[in-house]
């Protein structure tokens, strides 16, 4: 019977985790509750079909509200009242003047200093537009700290704090070799070393030390943003890595590292590869294909990360919305669907934690491989057959 006693704490822990997961999923569910209640309230006076139609529309709108960027950080809507954190809008007007103001001034379609958020259906929908003197609208240069930008800044700060904290742990021990980290510092160290030993060193090759800080930064930046994107409440929840601008910058950074530090051999392989001359001389067939590869690599990196994270967020939100869609199907159906939705949401969240790691890993691995290919040594055996 000792076995049962041994397993008891483990079973209890598992149950507790499951419970926490359910609570977490419920917290996520809180967010849309307000939204749909508001919709239902406003739709009360109208015909029920219209209400249903609106409700369905609202789900899509809610998902898009989340995965798209916005000028304020929406937390919840209670009884039709939005609880949101206003963010800083920074725009440059047509006259070349910079304006900085709180996004609260633009809420509910208000116009402030000649700027407003373009309404649904209009050109530049959901973005800040300025109205020129002649009454036409234009898109100003917009460097607003949007929800995603704020999320990026928060996550960056968190990441820098964590990694510099770990580095500081060694400094506080005067870089003594006898200081062996445990706990969190040990876990970070283990993660860093597993990346360096398993991906970076084998993929990049002999001068891996030079690229290791960039690749590690890329991994931890993506990983932190992915994980923070899964946290449903305020400091997290911004869909940063699910935004194409973010992944594009990451991919361009890798492209920069690959092409700027690529050696002679790499450029020779692109511009004058080892193929019969007719394939490259009058019509540069192979060079064109190779150059296309240079561009398609960062493109693939951009889209892979962006699409994976976006899809994850969408699926989790859709599953959570199942609860509110099924309201109209009767109480029994609603209860069944709620249980189903919570279980699936928990499953998806756990899966997304895995995906958060895998996508960061894949990005780092592919970047390492691309860098490794751009640094490869000339081998004589390959030259002439």
């Amino acid at each position: 019977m000792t076995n049962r006693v041994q397993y008891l704490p483990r079973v209890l822990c598992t149950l507790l985790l499951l419970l926490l997961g359910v609570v977490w999923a419920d917290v996520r569910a809180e967010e849309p509750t307000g939204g749909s209640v508001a919709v239902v309230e406003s739709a009360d006076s109208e015909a029920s079909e219209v209400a249903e139609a609106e409700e369905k529309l609202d789900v899509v709108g809610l998902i898009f509200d989340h995965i798209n960027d916005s000028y304020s950080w929406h937390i919840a809507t209670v009884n039709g009242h939005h609880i949101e954190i206003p963010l800083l809008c920074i725009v440059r007007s047509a006259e070349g003047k910079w304006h900085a103001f709180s996004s609260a001034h633009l809420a509910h379609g208000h116009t402030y200093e000649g700027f407003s958020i373009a309404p649904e259906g209009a050109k530049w929908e959901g973005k800040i537009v300025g109205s020129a003197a002649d009454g036409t609208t234009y898109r100003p240069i917009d460097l607003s700290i949007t929800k995603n930008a704020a999320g990026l800044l928060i996550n960056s700060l968190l990441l820098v704090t964590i990694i510099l904290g770990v580095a500081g742990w060694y400094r506080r021990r005067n870089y003594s070799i006898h200081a062996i980290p445990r706990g969190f510092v040990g876990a970070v160290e283990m993660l860093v070393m597993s990346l360096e030993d398993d991906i970076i060193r084998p993929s990049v090759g002999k001068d891996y030390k030079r690229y290791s800080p960039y690749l590690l930064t890329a991994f931890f930046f993506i990983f932190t943003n992915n994980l923070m994107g899964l946290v449903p409440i305020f400091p997290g929840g911004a869909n940063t890595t699910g935004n194409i601008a973010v992944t594009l910058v990451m991919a361009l950074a890798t492209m920069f590292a690959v092409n700027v530090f690529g050696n002679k051999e790499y450029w020779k392989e692109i511009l004058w590869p080892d193929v019969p001359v007719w394939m490259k001389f009058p019509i540069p067939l192979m060079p064109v294909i190779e150059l296309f590869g240079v561009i398609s690599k960062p493109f693939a990196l951009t889209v892979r990360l962006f699409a994976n994270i976006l899809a994850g967020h969408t699926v989790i939100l859709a599953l959570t919305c199942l609860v509110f869609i099924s309201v109209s199907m009767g109480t029994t159906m609603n209860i069944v669907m709620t249980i189903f939705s919570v279980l699936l949401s928990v499953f998806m969240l756990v899966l997304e934690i895995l995906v958060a790691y895998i996508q960061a890993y894949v990005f780092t691995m592919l970047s390492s491989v691309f860098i490794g290919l751009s640094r490869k040594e000339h081998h004589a055996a390959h030259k002439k057959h």
Partner: protein
Amino acid sequence: MSLLTPDLGLLFWMLLSFLLVFGALAKFGFPIITGMVDKRREHISSALAEADKARERIENVEQEARKMMDEATRRSSEILSAAVAESQQIVDSARERADADAAARIEAAKSRIAIEKEKALGEMRATVATLSVDVAEKILRSKLSTEEGDKALIDRLVEEAEKRAER
């Protein structure tokens, strides 16, 4: 469509935050962590190598000690056998010397005996001679009648005396 069109503002903030994070972490973050682990690895491998070397050295010392022990036993047995041989030799030589001594003594005794005998013989001869002279004198004095007959007698007497002396 807005999902697939990167926003300028976000691009700017992403670039800025990523560059800042990269700058901070690439300078003060990751190199310290990887450097520390590399340092630790180096330390461990050098400690292992040192331990190997120390073990080798101990083995060498042990071997040397064993060799020295062997050498010592060999030397001691050698010394022992040499001592035995020497003692044997000493005994042998002593015995030889004793033998030689004894032989020499015997020889000396023999020669002395021979000398004594010679002397005694000489003395006897002298005595015999004087005796014979005396006898001859007496005979001459008493019987100096026939030269021939007397001479024969004398010779016979001397011969007899000699024979007796020889015996």
